[in-house]
Every structure is written in structure tokens, then in C-alpha cells.
């Protein structure tokens, strides 16, 4: 839309200009484009951070389960909550990795040990088996847009360990 008769050139023809409405539309469109662009970039950073936190959570859970392999099937080790606590905490940057103290996202973990778990098909070795589940929970650390993440991982622990035929073949 052009406005006519705003002013005349020297030869008498009309010299058109942009109207206020056109200007507002153009500014609005530009604002939308830029806000969408920044929103996309911001979202990509958030997703990247979430992926990193998720990966770190996986490391913590695997590390926890790996240590269980060394615990004897006894009330003094595997089933001793002082040795294998059912609640624990960890952090994104553990001690020594980035600073002299734990820092970064804080993870709160819980451990459940279920003896004689239901297996299908039912097995005679069921009482010699325990199902261990590690669950980690953490937040994104933004109080205004707080989102809680949770991951869990399970494994079986056998009283007599891995059999040789499994290990060598």
C-alpha cells in the first residue's frame, strides 16, 4: 500500500512513501524472525545440556552397578546398607575432575535390591538372584522453569557370580 500525493517531484509525479502500517508489519515480521531464531538457538543449548546431564547420569548408574560386582553376597556387604547405601548423591563434575570440590548438576540416587525376583520362566536359582535398580533424579537447576529428570537402570546380581561358560564363550 502506498500513499499518494504525499509530495510532488519536480516533474509533477507523485512521490510515494511507506505507510506506518507497512512499517509496523515489517518490524513485527523481523521481530518474529529474530525471536524464533534466538528461541531455536536457546532450545538447542537446553537440549545439549540435557543430553550431557543424561549421559553423566548413565555414567553414574553404570559406575554404581559396576562396583556392586565386588560386593559379596552377605549381610556384611551387599545387604549392608552402611556399605551399599540405598541413597547417595553425586555431581556432574565429581571431585578432582574440574574443581577441588563437587560441582555442577547434583544427582540424587536411590538403590533398591530385590532378592528372589520374579523371572520368566521361573528358575530354581531365583533365591540366589537379586534385582538391583539404581534410580537417579536431578533438576535442570532453573527455579523458574524447573524440570525434573529421572533415569533408572537395573541389573541382576547372582550369589555365585558369572559362570565360566558364560565368561569364556
Amino acid at each position: 500500500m502506498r500513499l499518494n500525493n504525499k509530495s510532488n517531484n519536480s516533474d509533477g509525479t507523485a512521490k510515494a512513501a511507506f505507510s506506518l502500517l507497512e512499517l509496523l508489519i515489517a518490524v513485527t515480521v523481523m521481530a518474529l524472525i529474530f525471536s524464533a531464531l534466538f528461541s531455536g538457538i536457546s532450545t538447542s543449548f537446553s537440549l545439549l545440556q540435557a543430553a550431557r546431564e543424561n549421559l553423566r547420569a548413565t555414567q553414574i548408574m553404570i559406575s554404581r552397578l559396576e562396583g556392586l560386582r565386588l560386593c559379596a553376597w552377605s549381610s556384611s556387604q551387599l545387604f549392608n546398607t552402611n556399605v551399599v547405601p540405598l541413597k547417595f548423591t553425586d555431581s556432574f563434575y565429581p571431585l578432582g575432575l574440574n574443581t577441588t570440590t563437587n560441582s555442577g548438576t547434583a544427582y540424587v540416587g536411590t538403590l533398591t535390591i530385590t532378592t528372589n525376583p520374579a523371572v520368566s520362566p521361573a528358575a530354581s536359582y531365583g533365591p540366589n538372584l537379586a534385582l538391583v535398580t539404581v534410580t537417579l533424579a536431578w533438576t535442570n537447576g532453573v527455579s523458574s522453569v524447573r524440570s525434573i529428570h529421572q533415569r533408572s537402570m537395573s541389573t541382576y546380581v547372582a550369589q555365585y557370580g558369572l559362570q565360566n561358560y558364560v565368561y569364556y564363550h
Partner: protein
Amino acid sequence: MLNALPSSPSRKPASARRGSTLIEMLVAVTTGTCIMGSIMTTGITATNTMVAIGNYCDLNRASRRTLDMMSADLRNTAVVTSVSSKQVTVSNVLTADMISYAWDGSNKVTRTFNSTASVMLVNCDYLCFSNFQRNPTVNFQFLPATTPAATKLISVSWRCSRQILGAKINTESVQTAQICIRN
């Protein structure tokens, strides 16, 4: 009839030859600066984001590959022959191959299979091996092994990073693991 002739440009009236006013000029310059600044900021931010994501994916890929190989090597260990905070050397339980992982203290992590060395990680600015003996203690802590041969659990952590314009935001990969030896 001289008045019927079209007037030449050089003979325009003064009102038709006016230029931009200072206010118009200032508004135009300010608007242009804002637009150019927005475009530049957007471009720089988008570029940084792409580089950061690319760096992180690359570092993470290398870290996961290294941890996969290291886990397989250490789990199949017959005995740990040498260990320090920067290196670990083991022999394979089935093949008796000697395998070592070593950090040069500033950049590279190298895996040596018998005498063949291959670089596993670059841009590694921190790595630490710790070795522990079998028995867990209170609060899931393991006692340090007094000798390499007494090692049953190896803890390893490292950090790889790259910089973008002097900052390491989102361009680092952190890896920690505990690997239990199945000997």
C-alpha cells in the same frame, strides 16, 4: 511560450531540492545499526552454537569409543602390571597381550597394544586413574590397592575440551567410570 518548456533539473525550485534532515539521518543510522547488530549477533551466536554442538559430539564420540575399548580391555585383565594416575598397564587374561593406556599430561591419551600405539583421545586436559582392592567399605568406598597386582577395581575419569573464542561453554566432554576386573 517559454513557460511551456520543461524546466531543467539545475533549475529546480529550492523546495524540490531539499535533502534529508538531521533527524531523518539519525533515525536511519540508528535503525541500520540496530538491524546490522542484530544480524551480526545472530550470526555469531548461531555459528558458536553449531561449533559447540559439533565439538561436543566429536569429543563425546571419541570419549565413548575410548571407554568402550578401555572397559573391554580392563575387564578381561589377568593382572594389572603397572598403574599410576596417568597410565595403566594390564595383560589380557586370554591372550596375554600387554595393553596400556597412558595420558601425556596435557593432550593425548594413547592405547598401546603390545608395541602398537594408537591415539585414542586428543584435547584431553585431565585424566586420572585410581586403583582399588576388592573389599568395599562403608559408604561404598573401596580401599586403594597397595600393589598393582592387588587391583580389582579401576576408576578412571577424564575431561576433553575445546575452546570457542576463548570459552569452553558446552564444548567439553566429561567421562567417569569404575571398571571391575573379572579375573
